[in-house]
């Protein structure tokens, strides 16, 4: 045989070996945990890399904090809690593949996730097949709970509450008459912008323009020139903070001092970093309440800061509360099962019974679809270049 073939064999074995080494480590972990059969694993799925890693990370850390607090309580019951964060990369394919992994491992009794509705929708089909409870801390798309899946729940408001809430506020409180709608051509941005547009038109405002921008661009002067000529008195943006920050900044540079409003996707400290002083007179609707408004919230923020060295983001507390609801359901299921490890079905049915769980930012009670009956939409305003903005209004169902 030629030396080439020898190389190819060598090369492929080397590659395979490296694969195995990687998995070998994994095996150790698995065997280590299976010695003690009373392990309960909780997964989080959110983008830990990519453009919205910031928000995804905060969900993970929030859940992690809750888990660490509850660890003791579960140990007393005789169970060991473990959190396994998964990175869905905001990619549906990756999300589904992770979902299969999670669904396959019987130790998992529930999941906190996702950030992106586009990932949550296909992944939840897998959770449904595996009877795994999903508590969403952030998904607002209507379709998430509208497909009649019994394992899907969320603790935040839906787009068909959030969009109209923004429209109502803009028109009734701010007196907007000519509205320009921009969205980022993603599932999330389009959904939210459409909901806003529909509500704004119903309330009698004129939508003078509806434009899409490309994610990842840095020059939005094209759209801003449209704003300049259409002269709207209010701009709504459906999308994420990076694009919104740049749009606001570039618009202010051109002398547009009108109010801008974004959805929960712009609710991030990075927005202020990007837009700087331009962020004044910017509103955002959020499904996340002001964590620091209450005493417990302040304490949470301090814990979070000391633990992870980071300021809280809007979804930190929602990750925390989602994990809270999840653990509450598991605890109830353990009790109902006579202190034994409950099945996933039991956890799901216990979760559906949750009616008044008091979290840090929201009260949680699920309806038949899995939507939170206490979900509210909050409207914030930036009076100065400091995150978060100050709470300006609240709209509930």
């Amino acid at each position, binding site marked *: 045989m030629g030396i080439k073939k020898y190389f190819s064999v060598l090369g492929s074995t080397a590659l395979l070996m490296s694969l195995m080494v990687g998995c070998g480590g994994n095996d150790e972990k698995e065997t280590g945990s299976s010695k003690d059969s009373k392990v309960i694993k909780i997964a989080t799925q959110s983008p830990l890399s990519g453009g919205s890693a910031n928000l995804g990370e905060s969900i993970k850390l929030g859940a992690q904090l809750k888990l660490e607090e509850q660890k003791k309580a579960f140990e007393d019951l005789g169970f060991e809690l473990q959190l396994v964060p998964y990175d869905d990369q905001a990619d549906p394919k990756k999300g589904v593949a992770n979902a299969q992994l999670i669904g396959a491992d019987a130790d998992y009794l529930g999941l906190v996730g996702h950030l992106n509705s586009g990932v949550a929708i296909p992944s939840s089909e897998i959770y449904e097949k595996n009877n795994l409870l999903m508590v969403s801390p952030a998904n607002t798309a209507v379709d998430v709970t509208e497909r009649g899946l019994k394992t899907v729940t969320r603790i935040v408001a839906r787009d068909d509450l959030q969009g109209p809430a923004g429209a109502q506020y803009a028109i009734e409180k701010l007196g907007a008459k000519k509205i320009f709608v921009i969205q980022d051509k993603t599932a999330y941005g389009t959904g939210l912008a459409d909901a806003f547009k529909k509500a704004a038109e119903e309330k009698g405002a004129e939508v003078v323009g509806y434009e899409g921008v490309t994610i990842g661009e840095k020059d939005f*002067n*094209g759209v801003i*020139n*449209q704003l300049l*000529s259409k002269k709207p008195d209010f701009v709504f943006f459906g999308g994420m903070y990076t694009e919104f920050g740049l749009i606001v900044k570039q618009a202010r540079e051109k002398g547009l001092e009108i109010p801008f409003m974004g959805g929960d996707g712009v609710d991030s400290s990075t927005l202020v970093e990007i837009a700087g002083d331009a962020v004044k007179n910017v509103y955002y609707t959020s499904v996340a309440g002001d964590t620091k408004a209450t005493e417990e919230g302040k304490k949470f923020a301090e814990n979070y800061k000391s633990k992870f060295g980071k300021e809280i983001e809007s979804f930190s507390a929602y990750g925390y509360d989602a994990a809270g609801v999840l653990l509450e359901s598991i605890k109830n299921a353990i009790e109902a099962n006579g202190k034994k490890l409950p099945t996933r079905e039991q956890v799901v049915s216990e979760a559906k019974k949750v009616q008044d769980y008091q979290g840090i930012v929201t009260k949680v009670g699920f309806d038949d679809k899995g939507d939170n009956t206490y979900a509210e939409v909050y409207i914030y305003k930036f009076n100065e270049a400091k995150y978060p903005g100050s709470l300006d209004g609240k709209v509930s169902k």
Partner: protein
Amino acid sequence: MIEHIISTLPQVLIDGLALGAVYAIIALGYTMVYGILELINFAHGEIFMTGAFIGTALFITLSGLGFLAVMPALLALLLVLIVTSILTGFLGVGIERVAYRPLRKAPKLITLISAIGVSFLLQDLVRFITELKKGNYILTGPSLFTEQISIKASSILSSFADAQIKSSTIILVVTAIVMMIGLDYFVNRTKWGMAMRAVAQDRDTASLMSINVNKVISLTFFLGSALGGATGVLFAVQYGTIDPYIGFILGLKAFTAAVLGGIGNIRGAMVGGLVLGLIEMFAAANLSVITSNVFTAEYKDVFAFIILIIVLIYKPEGIFGKAVAEKV
């Protein structure tokens, strides 16, 4: 509709000019390398991006040390531009050494694949370093040159709306022009430039004429990458916020510009860049108005690519290829 187009025209022209200037300088880097090696240096967009990050990091350091407050901003910019372009210049030379030189005799396909690989590597390296330092990879520099200058376009034609120009836009365009003229002079009037042109025409013959081909190629990469890095700094100053993924699509557009103007042709690249910037800005501002919302602004990229495809198929030498080639 016509009213909208005309009234926004002055502003569209200014914004298009700024964007076009960025495209034009990046396109120069593509064109120079292509002219000599007949290689699409995919990593060039990434060098631009690296330049933007280095520049922003320098600005942040300067302002952190308090220099930015005492130094005239223009001087700081000049300093950052020089440092960044030297660094990215060496980065370009290094990339050529490691990833392209061993492949000079290999099929084109392989070199191109290597270039794509380098581009991915750089993206992730920059992401990694920024994330390690900062927690996330979206970087916002200190805002500089934000003074707005108003241009009374309405006094020229009453249906024009007044336009605004940021002082950083002026700096961007002026620097771009200076760099282009400098490069043009270098390539056409100096001995090294002559060597570059000789290598571009025929590498083997050039080496017979006692030209050190490897050195000339390194020099080309140094110049192209230095220009790319400097453009990155200007871009970061102009738009403020950068991320590691700006290079790829911008590089692609710049390549389109280079092709549009006739690849391998320095003056063509400048014209191509400006034309592309103007077309894109015009499309972004007017497309949805003209087509009454059937095509939204996102289609502007589609048009950029369609232009690229049409030019490549029907006039591969570029629109300005011939006319300019005669002058050189």
